[in-house]
């Protein structure tokens, strides 16, 4: 089952929503406890996160390092700005590839929905160009073009 939704908003925002069966408190903890983060924020199959620093307090540091075990790796650093247990996290992050990408400002909300949680993550990139470059554009018309194209092939 997947109910991930990813859309762009305005020129510089990306909004991701996802529903979870667990209540906001649990989802919030899964984002702020490094031992838990390390278990799921891994991306594609085969990648691990040997270093996971997640100091969930205002001004606290974030550092995630990933490796595919075959010599490829990259890392992310960031800082927490605001935390409101158990419904809101604001942080800033940047990737190091190894050059740092422009800062991505992220607000993550966890709203109760029934017995579960609706997570809404709103990313703000410094400008439209950065968002396009980072998001690889495909999310908008490009993706639509891909899908229309796909429909034609089916």
């Amino acid at each position: 089952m997947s109910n991930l939704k990813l859309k762009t908003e305005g020129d510089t925002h990306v909004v991701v929503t996802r529903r979870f069966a667990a209540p906001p408190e649990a989802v919030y903890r899964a984002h702020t406890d490094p031992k838990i983060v390390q278990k799921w924020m891994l991306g594609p199959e085969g990648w691990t996160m040997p270093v996971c620093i997640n100091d969930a307090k205002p001004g606290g540091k974030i550092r995630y390092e990933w490796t595919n075990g075959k010599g490829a790796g990259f890392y992310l650093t960031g800082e927490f700005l605001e935390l409101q247990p158990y419904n809101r996290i604001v942080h800033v992050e940047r990737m190091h590839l190894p050059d740092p990408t422009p800062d991505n400002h992220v607000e993550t909300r966890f709203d109760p929905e029934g017995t579960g949680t609706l997570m809404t993550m709103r990313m703000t990139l410094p400008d439209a160009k950065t968002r396009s470059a980072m998001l690889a554009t495909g999310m908008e018309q490009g993706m639509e073009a891909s899908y229309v194209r796909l429909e034609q092939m089916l």
Partner: protein
Amino acid sequence: MPYIRYYLLMSRTLNLDTAFAAMADPTRRAILARLAKGEATVMELAEPFEMTQPAISQHLKVLEDAGLIVRRIDGTRRPRRLAKAGIEAMDHWLAMLRKALEKNYDRLDEVLAAMEPHKKGKTR
């Protein structure tokens, strides 16, 4: 949380930088969306944009160089259409990206299911 790492990583891995750079422009995205509906000439493509044909031709060249569109010769006409291989490469990439995002949250679903349901948040 940070999704963008996969976009960057994968776009580098798959060498799609040129294609994505080509798509970073709204006019070029609109051209692709138009071509997704079927082939079109430069004149037809220029129409909705209030741009000169040379300006549109410049955008078409960028898209062509990126392998996203191709031209066909039809008498004096040179209609453009989407390039199957280029679009498929992007489809593939987007599918990988989406898979990576979904993978994270599917894993989180499992982690959450394993957490004690009514345990109050422990102090950090």
